[in-house]
């Protein structure tokens, strides 16, 4: 079977240039057939798409064939043909950067050509030797141990708008001992596609688990020469929604596939190197011991380990997947003073363990979204992370960012560990996500305002880690929050009322400087957007200025933010107070209440948004709530 499959792969490789060479591609009007795809027909269909003339680019085909060999090699062939019509399209496709690992893989470029003015450039079969340029990723310029990673540039010759660019290449990864493979194919791309196709070829007998989502088609299945090929093909695929979101598969058709036998097998493969109980080397052990010093408890020890890592080991920001099966020894990462996520995780695990804590490898489902338990795949997990435990301590460590969090809700959702999939209860089921800022102000003797207040941050809002957690600075963070609500304000004193990883309440006293009087002899007091509040938990793709959007908003949970200001005007009088206002819709609720309490005024601003995915059609409702909260009309008080 193995021999048959190799022949199959070889035939496929050989077929590509042969197809190019025999496709009748000669000067004229026929582009011809390439790798079995009729480019003339595809272009004709592209031209028939609505609004073709206004497009930056249209993908005639975006295709990938993944071939798993009996020996564990993984061949990934990518074939793209794209019509580009604008500079934006040119910037996206003319020069392509292909990452691959020269230590474990080979890269073969089989097509790199441009169709324009009735001919191919440079010609139908030639790949200009200077158009394929091997480079080192910038992230590895100071990381000698990772120097096997390459980014090969594929530079198209002859590009003049409009034109057709074709690229085809294959990366063969000699995986050897890898017991499985998995991946995710999202059909929607930056630009609309006439054909978006994913094919998976495995030896007969290899079980493939897969799930099609959001309108993705079922595969066609063909068996030949000892291999079974499943092909998922979708035609006339719209571009992905805008703005682009962090989890593209969340609102586009996709296929998730896996050849792993089980989550346990996948977890075991990912955790190779993590569970090595070999003791630290003497030098590193001494360094750690010196740092731990007289750390009184496990939280202090964890803090010391994190600090040691940050001071001692640079984070190399590179996709670490090529090395997941071959993590470096902890001592090597320490000695080199740099590491990517996996290597920093291995070193961190060894140090945490050396400090007497437990450290377990974890991957987190992207965006905290549900995973399909039937398809054991790492493709939709981010990581690695470490789950740290000790006496009175439970925390997660992110080795790429060097951050340690004790807030359990920050790691809600499915996890993947060495023993397999870990489905845990949703954090918000036990703790509501609440941010509440409350302050009472009165004129101070020295000018301006002074008063006392409280800050409550629960669930996802929990400021535990920033205030008094492992990396925290309570007074500093509190001061920043108060200053974000009232410009220039400072915190004079603070006192914790509740302090748990999932819930923190602090009391504080503060001074707020008085603004200069405006042209109308009024003092303006603007109640701003609190740092760490609801806006900080919105996805980065949420832009209030966008009246409409074509992608979903993925909210992390139901969120409530309350800002309450009680103000005694002293010998001044209110020239303006915001009017009461309430907006309630399917996305949530905004309310503003202004109450007089004797001579004081209480302004209560509350915003709550519901959990889950907000489809594009419901974005205006969510936006309406967010705009109300941001509106100066709902934030401004004037005194005379």
């Amino acid at each position, binding site marked *: 079977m193995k021999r048959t499959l190799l022949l199959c792969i070889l035939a496929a490789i050989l077929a590509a240039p042969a197809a190019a060479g025999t496709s009748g591609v000669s000067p004229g009007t026929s582009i011809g057939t390439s790798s079995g795809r009729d480019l003339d027909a595809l272009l004709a269909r592209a031209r028939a798409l609505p609004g073709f003339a206004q497009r930056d680019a249209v993908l005639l085909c975006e295709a990938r064939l993944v071939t798993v060999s009996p020996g564990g090699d993984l061949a990934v062939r990518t074939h793209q043909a794209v019509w580009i019509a604008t500079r934006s399209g040119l910037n996206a496709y*003319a020069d392509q950067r292909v990452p691959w690992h020269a230590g474990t893989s080979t890269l073969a470029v089989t097509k790199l050509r441009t169709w324009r003015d009735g001919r191919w450039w440079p010609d139908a079969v030639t790949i200009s030797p200077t158009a394929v340029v091997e480079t*080192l990723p910038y992230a590895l310029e100071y990381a000698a141990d990772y120097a096997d990673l390459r980014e090969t540039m594929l530079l198209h010759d*002859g590009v003049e708008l409009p034109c057709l660019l074709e690229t085809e290449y294959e990366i063969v990864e000699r995986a050897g001992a890898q017991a499985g493979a998995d991946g995710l194919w999202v059909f929607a791309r930056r630009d609309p596609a006439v054909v978006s196709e994913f094919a998976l070829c495995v030896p007969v007998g290899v079980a493939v688990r897969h799930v099609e989502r959001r309108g993705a088609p079922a595969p066609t299945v063909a068996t030949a020469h000892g291999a079974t090929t499943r092909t998922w093909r979708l035609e006339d695929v719209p571009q992905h929604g805008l703005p682009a979101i962090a989890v593209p598969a969340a609102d586009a058709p996709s296929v998730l596939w896996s050849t792993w036998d089980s989550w346990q097998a996948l977890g075991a493969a990912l955790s190779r190197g993590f569970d090595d109980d070999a003791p630290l080397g003497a030098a590193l052990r001494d360094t750690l011991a010196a740092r731990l010093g007289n750390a009184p408890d496990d939280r202090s020890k964890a803090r010391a380990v994190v600090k040691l890592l940050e001071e001692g080991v640079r984070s190399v920001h590179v996709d670490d997947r090529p090395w997941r099966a071959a993590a470096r020894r902890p001592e090597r990462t320490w*000695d080199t*003073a740099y590491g990517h996520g996996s290597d920093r995780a291995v070193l961190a695990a060894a140090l945490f363990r050396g400090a007497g804590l437990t450290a377990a490898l974890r991957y987190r489902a992207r965006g905290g979204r549900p995973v399909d338990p039937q398809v054991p795949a790492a493709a939709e997990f981010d990581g690695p992370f470490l789950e740290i435990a000790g006496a009175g301590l439970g925390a997660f460590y992110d080795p790429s960012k060097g951050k340690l969090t004790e807030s359990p809700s920050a790691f809600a959702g499915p996890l993947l560990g060495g023993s397999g999939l870990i489905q845990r209860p949703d954090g918000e089921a036990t703790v509501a996500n609440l941010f509440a800022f409350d302050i009472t102000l009165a004129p101070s003797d020295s000018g301006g305002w002074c008063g006392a207040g409280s800050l409550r941050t629960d669930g996802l809002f929990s400021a535990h880690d920033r205030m008094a957690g492992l990396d925290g600075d309570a007074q500093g963070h509190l001061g920043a929050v108060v200053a974000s609500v009232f410009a220039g304000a400072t915190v004079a004193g603070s006192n914790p009322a509740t302090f748990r990883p999932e819930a923190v309440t602090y009391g504080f006293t503060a001074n707020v400087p008085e603004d200069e009087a405006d*042209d109308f002899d009024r003092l303006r007091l603007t109640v701003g957007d609190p740092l760490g509040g609801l806006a900080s938990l919105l996805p980065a793709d949420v832009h209030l*200025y966008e009246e409409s959007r074509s992608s979903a908003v993925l909210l992390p949970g139901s969120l409530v933010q309350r800002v309450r200001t009680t103000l005694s005007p002293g010998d001044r009088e209110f020239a303006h107070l915001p009017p009461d206002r309430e907006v309630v819709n399917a996305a949530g609720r905004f309310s503003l209440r202004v109450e007089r309490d004797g001579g004081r005024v209480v302004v209560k601003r509350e915003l709550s948004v519901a959990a889950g995915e907000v489809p594009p059609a419901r974005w205006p409702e969510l936006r309406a709530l967010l705009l109300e909260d941001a509106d100066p009309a709902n934030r401004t008080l004037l005194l005379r």
Partner: protein
Amino acid sequence: MPQPPRPAIPSLLLGFLLVLAAAAGAGEPVLPPGDRPPPTAFTRLADAGDAEAHPGAGLVVVFEEMVNRVQPSGVTEVDGYRLTKVLTPAGCRDNSVLTWRYDPQSSRVEVREVAVLRDGERLSVDVAAVHDLPAPQSAIYWSDRIQLLQLPRLRPGDGIEVRTWRKGFTYALLGGDGAAAGGAAADDDARFIPPMPGEYFDIVLFAEDAPIVEKRYVLSLPADKRLHAEVHNGALYSSVAYDAERTEYAWWGRDLPALVHETRQPAASDFAPKVVMATVADWESKSRWFFDVNRDQFDVTPEIRDKVDVILAAAGLTGAAPERRAEALLHWVAQNIRYSGQTMGPGEGFILHSGAMIFEQRSGVCKDIAGMLVTMMRAAGLDAQAAMTMAGSRIEDVPADQFNHCVTALRLPDGSFRMYDPTWVPYDNNIWSYSETEQHYLVGSPQGDTLDRIAYSPPAESPLRAVHRATLQDDGTLTGEFELTGRGVMDGRLRGLANGRRDNLASVFAKALAAVSPRVEGVRVTHRRTDDFGGDMRITVAYRIPRYALPVDGGLEFRSPLMQLTLHDGTLFRAGATAWEDERKTDILLYFTQLLDGQETIRLPRGWRATVAEQPDAVDEIYAAFTGASRHDGNDLVITQRFESRRRQVPPDGYPGFKKAVDAARAWGDRVFRAEKGGVR
């Protein structure tokens, strides 16, 4: 040559000398009070101080010396020595890998010795472990290489001692590690001979991100070579010595601070101490060389000639005046030759790719894009040459290769040149970017030209005319249209705004209008086609903002929407939208001058009147000026703003005045206008 016979040393005398030598070695030589023995790496390291002596630094350069030996051919070898001291844990972390970049086509680098100096010991690092790899590359893909060496785990106080040897040259200013030095040219030395055979140049900065205790640069030239050299941006020590064979120049500096980093700073060569040197006689020689070396690169092929004919015919310019034909060809090249450079092999970096090659590839770097235009202009019968320039930085008056950019020169009938820069004017209706004014250039010509300079461009040549017409309803809703017209530098900047994804255009401008209010809706954008160079760029943005004005006590209060837009958009108003420091130690490089000429007319609800705010004091400083005003015109409130950025580069002593004008503009943007029915009480 026969050597003279040596006199034999009597054995007794020899024995006496040996005893003396042994006695001398038995103890330290006695030094006069106050004198110190010659420094060693270890004493230098000890004297360099610790983290407290160098606040904020993770590393200090203790001693660096480059000895450049130039041979008659110009082939240069450099013996490099660099001793650094790690000061902090962060310094240990961030300096754990050493790197050296080079171009294998023109230079060679050998890492000869690396050691970590620790506790009085020299711990050797195995240089056989150096990785030689393809370098990181972006946009320029010339297959450069990089060498990496991993150091052992460092400790604060460690010294890193490195000895290198280089040979060859680095083209133009694209490399980072300087040129080379000499040694006998072997048979394979041809690739190391510099572009101007027999000549030498260098630009040596005496500053880097770490403080420097001492840095020396030594240049040894054959006696028959003469040298121009100048020190700029500060004082350095220097010496010259000679013998019958060679002349040796040296420059050194001591206790040099780390480079300061400030917002919108020019390149360090504009403000850090440097030596600029060259053996070439004069600019005219360099001009002739540049012409000669590229003499064969502009051959016109039939395909290129056909294309030129098509371009000119399509534009109706066949037989038109030279400038008009040149402009049409410039725009074709700028639009169709993308910036992405493949290598041509030997000669890369200073020889322009042939027109035929670039016409085929439709891509290249600046020199290739400029060369394509030269070729096409010649195909159109125009007298065009390639020229070198220095984008964004000053050129000192020493004929060294102080160039990082390449452009095109068209000789006019009066013998003067008109300059074209196709690399910097894609989607720009100018022939030369207004971001390159006051920039030096050198045209390559057979007779040899001298260094020349693009003229200063006053703000009026780069205006952004911003007109805003809006209607304010009594519920605070603002409906209106911004009309933005740009000329000079602002033409290209406006085109850039409109040149992103076609399906994202409204979002781009909604984002800009978010500075006015995120409630913006109904954004409709119209504009001149970004590749229509028949006139200045014009964009109109229609919008609606519900509840823009704040209802207060029966009236409506608001700030100037146009000022909110311009003060928050660096594309429209670079000086105004940049967060500036309170004080500056280095120049500001804005790249261009600009006039912001804004006028907005806000029609108030019938019967309403607005306050006419107190007029701000006009600011009229050397480097910037601002005036603002408001008035009533019937039912309309008219608000104006006028800002001038008067120089592309502002020196530190001009900064307070510049900042004063910016602050005045911001204060005007913060001014609250109030409208009431019947007029403000």
